[in-house]
């Protein structure tokens, strides 16, 4: 009888590069940077890593395909390396592969590393690729990521009868609080606080999302080394950070083809949340989650996720936002590191960068002004694809 992942895997070490326009760095440089930090944090030698999972999404402007680039860059000694790709859940999928291998008892120590080098595209925004397949390229509108997610906002505001100005203000608060957090983070790309007024005054990118409602494109890498709790404790980690849940949920086709999806929430997030909470033994997420890093590629995504994760009641996220519930000093700090808003979204790396933040918060390593009070359970959330057809990943780690 399967029993889930709870408490079967410990995070031994993590690393994360500075995210941003890393013009001087190739993907290989970012890989080495993240890996070295993770290795030092884990306190082991490279040769002790028995298997690796390598997450990259866009190989057209990145390292290429397969697990080979990770191995040849780090000179991993002929170990198994698996490339994972699942849109924006790519990084978490790499983590999941490494964790399952350890939990299954097949390996003792595994590496998960995600990297994305996006700034060789030549223009801002994600490069236009046939990421959704050939048929979609033939019949799908000439869309961009901001436009695809902006639709969540028009549907959400209409469904709950929200005055667009009030909606805009709530979205502005989400971004402002993330920017305030990112300003304190030396690894973030964007480190300038922005006021709600500056956000509301900014020009539109895709109605109703403005400049500050959209995360930028950047380069970055992050890595995790995982092992069993027993091995972690034997390596002087007395109270290791343990994996409580990893859930992946993929759209069934129902949202995009059937008649029930309302366009105003993310069905996969709801279900992944339910799976993850059950796996971690969490009955009341609003009370039991200490902090989270959710997929704020667009401020509206973060807003709907508050509700999809059963933290805010349906249609009422704006009230919690106004109350500062998700601010750094609030009940459930969201994006304490600044989120995708300040880090940008190197797709393969983001899931692991989120875990890096939760991990370090749980170990209470940050300076006082960045710390989350009483961290017990940290949740990460990724969403890749389009609101109507996507993959969602949720990981929960805790002590």
């Amino acid at each position: 009888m399967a029993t889930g992942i709870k408490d079967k895997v410990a995070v031994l070490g993590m690393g994360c590069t500075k995210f941003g326009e890393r013009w001087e760095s190739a993907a290989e440089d970012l890989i080495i940077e993240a890996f070295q930090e993770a290795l030092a944090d884990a306190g082991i030698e490279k040769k002790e890593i028995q298997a690796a999972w390598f997450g990259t999404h866009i190989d057209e402007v990145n390292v290429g395909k397969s697990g080979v680039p990770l191995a040849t860059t780090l000179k991993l000694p002929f170990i198994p390396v698996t490339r994972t790709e699942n849109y924006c859940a790519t990084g978490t999928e790499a983590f999941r592969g490494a964790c399952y291998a350890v939990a299954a008892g097949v390996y003792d120590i595994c590496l998960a590393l995600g990297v994305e080098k996006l700034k060789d595209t030549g223009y801002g925004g994600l490069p236009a690729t046939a990421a959704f397949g050939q048929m979609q390229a033939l019949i799908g509108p000439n869309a961009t990521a901001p436009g695809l997610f902006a639709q969540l906002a028009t549907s959400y505001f209409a469904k709950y009868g929200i005055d667009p100005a009030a909606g805009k203000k709530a979205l502005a608060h989400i971004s402002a609080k993330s920017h305030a957090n990112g300003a304190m983070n030396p690894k973030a790309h964007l480190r300038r606080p922005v006021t709600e007024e500056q956000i509301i005054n900014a020009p539109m990118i895709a109605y109703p999302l403005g400049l500050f409602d959209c995360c930028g494109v950047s380069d970055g890498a992050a890595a995790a080394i995982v092992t069993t709790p027993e091995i972690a404790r034997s390596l002087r980690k007395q109270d290791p950070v343990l994996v409580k849940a990893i859930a992946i949920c993929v759209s069934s086709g129902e949202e995009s083809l059937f008649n029930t999806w309302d366009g105003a929430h993310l069905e996969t997030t709801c279900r992944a949340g339910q799976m993850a909470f059950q796996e971690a033994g969490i009955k009341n997420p609003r009370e039991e989650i200490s902090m989270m890093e959710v997929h704020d590629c667009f401020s509206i995504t973060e807003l709907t996720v508050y509700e999809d994760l059963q933290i805010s009641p349906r249609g009422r996220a704006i009230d919690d936002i106004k109350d500062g519930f998700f601010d750094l000093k609030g009940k459930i700090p969201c994006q304490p590191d600044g989120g995708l808003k300040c880090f940008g979204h190197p797709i393969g790396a983001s899931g692991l960068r989120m875990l890096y933040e939760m991990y370090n918060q749980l170990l209470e390593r940050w300076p006082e002004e960045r710390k989350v009070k009483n961290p017990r359970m940290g949740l990460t959330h990724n969403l890749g694809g389009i609101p109507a057809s996507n993959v969602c990943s949720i990981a929960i780690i805790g002590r």
Partner: protein
Amino acid sequence: MDKYIHPELNKKVEFFGGSYLFVEEGRLNYQGKEVFYLLGMAGVESSCCGTGGCAFIKVPGYVLSWKKGWSESGQSISEVERIVAEESQTTIRKILQEKYPGFQQIEFL
């Protein structure tokens, strides 16, 4: 009635790869009321905004009282009445489009 904090003109607000700023404040008459608007421009170095930048207009609303207070950071505050009627928005949009060709984005705050 809403309070609108006047942004400092010609002061860049930075975002990834570029910045935006407001260059001009304007007021026009419409049906006996004063419509307050701001002309803004975004300059983008890394071409994330379509063709490298944009010209936009924000319309906070009808002026109820002009620059009667100050914000904490020393910016003027005006009281405005948001313009929500569709017909008014359509007509005012047309007036602004004719007055400022090239300023494609017109948003009623």
